[in-house]
């Protein structure tokens, strides 16, 4: 039907379109043909070219912690480019804030972290636009927010950005979209809308401050699992407790190495008993939470967070009981005990429940590999977080909950994708830096590479406190080493000698070889504790690049950023 240049340009377009793009294009064209007159050939062609008219250039920025926003932003920018738009892609920590006032079209893809905060890499940008009055009268923009509806402040950071850009004079091309953990299809849909709207933008109303945002329906897939095995990997005498937990399911689990497992913990009975006593509840009372009715016992056990309430909630409670309470975080039991309502008043439990947050899920890097351990099994590596409150030993909510599970107990979970933490091509070398539980995804990587017969070399840096008691998965790593899957292993045990030795010291010791691997195209993966480990490791990486690449500090930084942008430097730190 098509001929000559038309066919050629269609082919050009289709040639390097991804599968998703093809699906989108076909859907798009189908939509077009259904509303328009039976399309004339020229119409289609015109449309493809016309797309570039209204937005000649567009900057796509992202703020990400686990790479989801980056993946979406990258897809987005590629698609814009295919449309002929000059799209620039930038991570928000690389974005020059002064450029903002020059921008005519901006797309922000950003997740929410912590208690409604922006990701680390987006903090500077976030603070800057909130603290400064910049005039953005000529800016057209759109914000796509990634989050998890299980958190009380769902997509808060994205919301804030969207609102602030509006306040500074920007005009929305499309309303804010809040995506839940299954964000892929929603993000795609929003991009469609954005492109569509951009085409017609000049005629569209600019919207107002409270433009209706669409929230994606939560499509989180919940799996019912059973604990098939649980063992503390640390030996006697260790300061640590790290549990290897194997979870079995009836159905296949859809995950890839690099993904995490999300769990909503249940509150412990000891704390619950205290609260029930203070609230004079017997557990049978009916209470409403988020439009559903629960028995008090069930609600407090599995829905409501009672541990370490944020200041925000503590202050709402203060209002409820009409007392002054300092700006602190506090457990609900302590709050009720130390600041009870006045003697003549009874606390309305329903009102209390109304202000409380749900228990937020915690993530654990998956340490199994689907190819090696099967699709009906998933493993995590959980460090039981232990701390002192006063002279009392306390445990973190979720890690404690998981650590205390026993074989055959049931556990619900979901899969949190991390598309920026993926194995590279089979013959690409990888360098894995994963002290402590940072080892978890690398166990998955190594087993996957072993099962798939990947030829790339694998170099692991692992660290903990003591060689004898804390070498997580040692025997497995040894057999991977013996069979040649693991090419090199370097370990740093910080407390086995007088001076502390950490993974970054081992990296420094092998700097020349490490740099050689990098130059040869190796990917670097960093996982584990964010502060201070990931910062120290990154400093060391920069130092190695500078020394062995003969680069000054800023060039070394560029080198690492380039690696990151080319998807060769991956971080999953927490």
């Amino acid at each position, binding site marked *: 039907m098509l001929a000559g240049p038309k066919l050629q340009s269609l082919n050009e377009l289709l040639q390097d379109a991804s599968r998703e793009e093809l699906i989108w294009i076909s859907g798009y064209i189908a939509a077009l043909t259904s509303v328009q007159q039976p399309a004339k050939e020229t119409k289609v062609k015109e449309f493809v070219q016309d797309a570039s008219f209204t937005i000649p250039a567009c900057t796509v920025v992202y703020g990400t912690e686990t790479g989801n926003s980056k993946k979406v932003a990258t897809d987005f920018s590629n698609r814009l480019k295919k449309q002929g738009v000059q799209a620039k892609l930038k991570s928000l920590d690389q974005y020059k804030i002064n450029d903002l006032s020059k921008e005519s079209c901006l797309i922000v893809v950003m997740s929410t972290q912590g208690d409604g905060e922006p990701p680390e890499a987006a903090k500077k940008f976030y603070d800057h636009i909130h603290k400064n009055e910049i005039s953005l009268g000529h800016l057209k923009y759109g914000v796509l927010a990634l989050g998890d509806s299980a958190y009380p402040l769902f997509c808060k950071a994205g919301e804030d950005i969207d609102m602030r850009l509006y306040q500074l004079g920007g005009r929305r091309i499309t309303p804010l979209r809040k995506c839940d953990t299954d964000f892929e299809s929603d993000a795609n849909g929003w991009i469609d809308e954005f492109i569509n709207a951009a085409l017609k933008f000049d005629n569209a109303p600019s919207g107002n401050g409270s433009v209706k945002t669409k929230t994606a329906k939560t499509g989180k897939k919940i799996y019912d699992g059973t604990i098939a095995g649980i*063992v*503390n*990997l*640390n*030996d006697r005498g260790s300061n640590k407790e790290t549990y*290897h937990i194997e979870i079995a399911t009836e159905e296949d689990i859809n995950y890839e190495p690099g993904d995490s497992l999300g769990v909503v913990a249940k509150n412990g009975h000891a704390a619950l008993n205290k609260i029930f006593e203070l609230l004079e509840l017997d557990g049978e009372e009916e209470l409403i939470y988020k439009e559903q009715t629960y028995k008090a016992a069930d609600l407090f056990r599995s829905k409501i967070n009672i541990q370490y309430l944020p200041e925000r909630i503590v202050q709402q409670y203060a209002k409820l009981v009409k007392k002054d309470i300092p700006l602190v975080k506090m457990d609900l039991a302590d709050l009720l005990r130390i600041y009870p309502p006045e003697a003549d008043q009874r606390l309305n439990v329903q009102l209390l429940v109304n202000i409380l947050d749900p228990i937020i899920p915690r993530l654990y890097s998956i340490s199994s590999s689907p190819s090696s351990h099967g699709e009906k099994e998933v493993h995590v590596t959980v460090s039981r977080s232990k701390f002192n409150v006063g002279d009392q030993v306390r445990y973190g909510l979720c890690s404690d909950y998981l650590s205390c599970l026993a074989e055959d107990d049931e556990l619900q979970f979901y899969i949190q994708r991390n598309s920026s933490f993926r194995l590279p091509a089979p013959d690409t070398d990888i360098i894995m830096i994963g002290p402590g539980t940072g080892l978890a995804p690398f166990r998955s990587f190594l087993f996957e590479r072993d099962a798939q017969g990947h030829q790339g070399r694998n170099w692991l840096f692992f660290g903990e406190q003591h*060689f*004898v*008691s804390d*070498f*997580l*998965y*040692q*025997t*497995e*790593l*040894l057999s991977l*080493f013996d069979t040649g899957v693991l090419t090199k*292993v*370097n*370990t740093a045990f910080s407390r*086995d*000698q007088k001076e502390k030795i950490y993974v970054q010291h081992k990296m420094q010791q092998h700097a020349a070889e490490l740099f050689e691997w990098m130059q040869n195209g190796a990917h670097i993966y960093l996982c584990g504790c964010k502060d201070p480990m990931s910062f120290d490791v990154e400093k060391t990486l920069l130092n190695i690049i500078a020394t062995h690449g003969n680069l000054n500090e800023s060039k070394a930084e560029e080198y690492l950023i380039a690696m990151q942008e080319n998807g060769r430097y991956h971080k999953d730190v927490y």
Partner: protein
Amino acid sequence: MGVNMSESPVERIKKASRGLRGTLKESLLDEHTGAIREDDQALVKFHGMYLQDDRDRREERAAKKLERLYSFMIRLRLPGGLLTPERWETLHHVAGEQSTGVIKITTRQTIQLHGILKSHVKPAISAFNKVHLDSIAACGDVNRNVICSAHPKYSAIHEEIFPYANKISSFLLPKTKAWYEIWLDEEKLAEVSEEDPLYENRYLPRKFKIAIAIPPYNDVDVFTNDIGLIAVVEQNKLIGFNVAAGGGMGTTHGNPETYPRLGTVLGFVKPGDLLKVVYEIVTVQRDNGNRSDRKLSRLKYTIDRMGVDVFKAEVERRSGVQFEPAKKIVFTYRHDNYGWHQNHEGLWYYTAFIENGRIYDDEQVQFKQAFFEIAQTRRAQFRFTCNQNLIIGDIKEEDKSLVEEMLDKYGVIKFTNEASPVRKNSMACVALNTCPLALAEAQRYLPSLVTKIEAILAKYKLQNEGINIRMTGCPNGCARPYISEIGFIGTALGKYNMHLGADVIGTRLNKIYKEGLTEEEILYELDVLFQRFVTTRKKKEAFGDFVMREQIVQSP
């Protein structure tokens, strides 16, 4: 000559080792394991160390995905078993900082430390080296620690004979300097030749042991050694040595070709000829020992295969020394005499009872603390006995009360005094949890068994009998159980073969009485035997002699 069968893998490892270096340096740097590479595990023995693991922890650690709890046992080369107080202090610190803390006196008069992690081995060795202690050739297919009767009081010329232990040990040391390179990071000196005419590049077919006994004391169990030297003293002068060869204890369950054997006396040699003769006995074994089956490679099998006469003639030919007929010697003791004794010069010696050679501190007795404080005074030396005990000695009259006070303060004297004669004459090997070859418990178990045996002895009013009991966790015989009045040899957890009938002075092997006994069965058998002993014993007859006379076991 030699045996024409394919050589055992250890032979290949030795020859390829470049002077016992192997890849030990690399093994030490391996960060992923507490072990060393397989071939190096054979070589490290020549450096006085064994790679072991805590056998109690295997299952639990496997469940935790942790490798075995590997560590090293280090055995010092200590000819004659003498330590100066300065060296004791070092030993005390190394034991505390790098090992399990327990100082173990062995049945060959030296000490072992257990549980030294790979990363702690070099610091430990470097500390030892600072006080000129080493572990070279304490294990491996070479001549081991040369032992010598420990107590200076038994002979006025102990001081003259004792140095032979050191002389022989140095004379038979391998020439390689690998020990210094690997463990102390010393540079390899190109100009120092490592040419080794004795060991060549193949070393001996098997371990080799030499003992010197100074009659009437046979604490060294001289006839259980590859070479047993018995000092011949006439009118307080050393005139030479009776030389015995081909002693050894080790057997293997179910292998009838293996057996314990007492050394055969070849004859008498003068002091000036001693080194030559010893050297050539070693070379004859080097050239004729079995290098394919390590179970049959000790000198005892070589001699029996060659025939004693042929063997003796070969030694004479090589050394150019003719054996004179053996001189008459008399042994009267093998056990240690506890408590204070004075030698001919008036120096004082205190022999402390150290059950199974384990020196530790607990609530009841603080051996380590006592010996450490005594060492700090610099007023005494430390001598180990082949019965796993400690002699604090060479104490001047004026210092005696000071030492005594410390021994008393930390419960050592009380511990020694209160132990029963049978306990003081009992001995067990290490066995579990460190010995990889152990089939049953020994040093962790014997003390409680002895308590039960004490009760039976008391029942028959035999509580003052110092019957000699020895237990090992396997048939290798590290506590020389084949030459004890009652020997227990582990066959499986909780099961022991019971041997009976050696003599008190160590010149007659015992015989197997019953196999695979449980504790209950052991106690039952002993009850029956002791009852018979009280009723039919001849005056002052030792239990071992009684058993033989009554043909409770068949004499050889």
